[in-house]
């Protein structure tokens, strides 16, 4: 089912949490609401499932408007960060709860619960109480409960945050598998870009109550619309440096290079203040545009090595290299950047 938010706004008293948000999610698509805490992603989620009332705008599930429906009438499945299993009910009863509330027949309930339990590989847990389940098992039960009545939309609020690292990896692909199998339109709320990028078809990056950009993980990484997105996506993060345009060159203290043609051709004028963003993989020893600095930090991550390079102007540039360590702390070195992969931003932070 297609989900649409039209000019959705939400305010808490005088504080506007979300303003005029438009979002359309295709049928069967899984989208991530990604952003730092307090950006309004959980608020959006709660508005979609009806826990929060909408201040302005409309919400559509397919061609059904649900803007003013109470959560009970919306047919959404929600997986909460804490899983929110009913502690006094067994796994079976937990999963059956949404069906029992709708007074479905016992035979139907039995069959549907068995089916979903089968999909999630939790048949043998049906008799247990939530207290007797591990974190991963609770997660599966919560998913089963959310999916059992074939909801119009599946909402997940930081579903992996309460799991330990190994399990997180496993559940990432599991959730994706189950979502694909069920074909249920899904929204994942997370602050973790890796989760968003690895699990979802598209990402909506939110900041200060606004969607900054919607796109596939690849688009988000390689074509960020602005400085915030470039800075948020990517780990280890991108390095920024401020400078001005002079004679078709980017000039900053201790750093100067010829602007690539498509930037020169675009609307930069001499003397304009711009900023550059260089992802760590585009700063390498053998790249063309020379850059000079002192190595101030080295961290070996096993397969790769992370370096911090301090330029003449004090800017720190990060580099990630997979080869053997070639230098040591304090060395003055000459490396290079790939100018064609550098992002350029104007003074407002919009990418040129």
């Amino acid at each position, binding site marked *: 089912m297609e989900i649409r938010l039209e000019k959705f706004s939400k305010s808490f008293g005088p504080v506007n949490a979300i303003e005029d948000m438009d979002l359309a999610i295709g049928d069967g698509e899984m989208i991530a609401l990604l952003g730092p805490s307090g950006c309004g992603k959980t608020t959006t989620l*709660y508005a979609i499932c009806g*826990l*929060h*009332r909408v201040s302005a705008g409309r919400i559509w599930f397919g061609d059904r408007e649900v803007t003013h429906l109470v959560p009970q009438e919306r047919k959404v499945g929600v997986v909460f960060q804490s899983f929110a299993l009913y502690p006094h009910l067994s796994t079976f009863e937990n999963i059956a709860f949404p069906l029992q509330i709708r007074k479905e027949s016992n035979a139907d309930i039995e069959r549907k619960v068995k089916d979903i339990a089968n999909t999630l590989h939790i048949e043998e847990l049906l008799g247990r109480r939530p207290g007797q389940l591990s974190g991963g098992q609770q997660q599966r039960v919560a998913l089963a409960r959310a999916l059992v009545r074939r909801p119009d939309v599946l909402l997940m609020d930081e579903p992996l945050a309460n799991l330990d690292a190994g399990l997180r990896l496993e559940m990432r692909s599991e959730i994706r598998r189950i979502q694909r199998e069920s074909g249920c339109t899904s929204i994942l709320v997370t602050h973790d870009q890796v989760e968003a990028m690895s699990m979802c078809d598209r990402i909506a990056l939110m900041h200060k109550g606004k969607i900054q950009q919607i796109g596939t993980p690849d688009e988000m990484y390689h074509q960020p619309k602005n400085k915030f997105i470039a800075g948020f996506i990517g780990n280890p993060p991108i390095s920024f440096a401020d400078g001005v345009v002079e004679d078709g060159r980017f000039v900053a203290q201790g750093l100067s290079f010829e602007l690539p043609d498509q930037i020169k051709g675009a609307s930069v004028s001499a003397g304009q203040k711009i900023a550059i963003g260089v992802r760590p993989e585009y700063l390498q020893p053998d790249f063309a545009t020379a850059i000079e600095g002192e190595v101030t930090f080295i961290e070996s991550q096993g397969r790769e090595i992370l370096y911090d390079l301090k330029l003449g102007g004090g800017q720190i540039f990060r580099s990630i290299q997979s080869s053997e360590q070639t230098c040591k702390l304090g060395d003055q070195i000459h490396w290079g950047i790939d100018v064609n992969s550098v992002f350029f931003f104007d003074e407002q932070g919009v990418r040129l």
Partner: protein
Amino acid sequence: MDDRKTNWPLTLFLLIVSAPILIMYVWLFIDSVSEINIESIWPEKFTLRNWRFLTEEIPGHGSVWTATLNTTIFATSVVAIVVVLSSTAGYALSRLKFPFRAPFLGIVLLLHSFPSVTLIISIFLMLRMIGLYDTLVGVILVKAALELPFGIWIMKGFYDTVPWEIEMAGLQDGASRFQVWYKLVLPQIMPGVAALAIFSFMAGWSEFVLPLILAPSSDTRLLSVYLAGLIIDDYLSDFGLFKAVGLFYVVPVMIFYLFTQDKLMNIYGGGTKG
């Protein structure tokens, strides 16, 4: 559920069932300063006559000021005894190893839920025997003793929440066990001490049955007994007077409660006994 709408039938229902309380306490104030008309409950005329008990004795009932002084002495003494004894005993029970600790804890726990009012007859007889009957000292000791199991239990609960590491670190740093208690642990549980003190004060200020039975004469009587005496006096049937005395009696505890309620709520943290 995260932003609740007003559910008018529900609000109306609660308003109706809460109405007696609201009405009673509004009229407590109104009637204390107005002349009462038997035909109507609406005040006719402002008067301070109901407050005459402040300056003159109501015949046969002694002075309200003696009762006020007694009540103050009573409540503060009970607080002092309960706080001092509970905070030391609570610590011992929570942290020290001593013979018969478990049985003692069992007894305290038992007494904590034990209805002390059933003991009133034998306490009355015992006070008569040892000559503390009809003295403030006697009734203070009894009230404090009856509050103690509760106090000890609450304090033990608070001490239990203080991390052992604090004490271990203190001992490592060369402090004695007493210093550790006084300088390191006690400050951690000040909210608990405050809550217990507030709770005991309010319990002491309001106490009725014990002073009624154990200290009934006019020299030792408390405000509660004084007011109850007025109400059952057949020659007085003056709700204006009762309400003025009642207001005089209840206002201090209400104000006290308003200023301390946040601290007092700590006592319900344990969730065992209110």
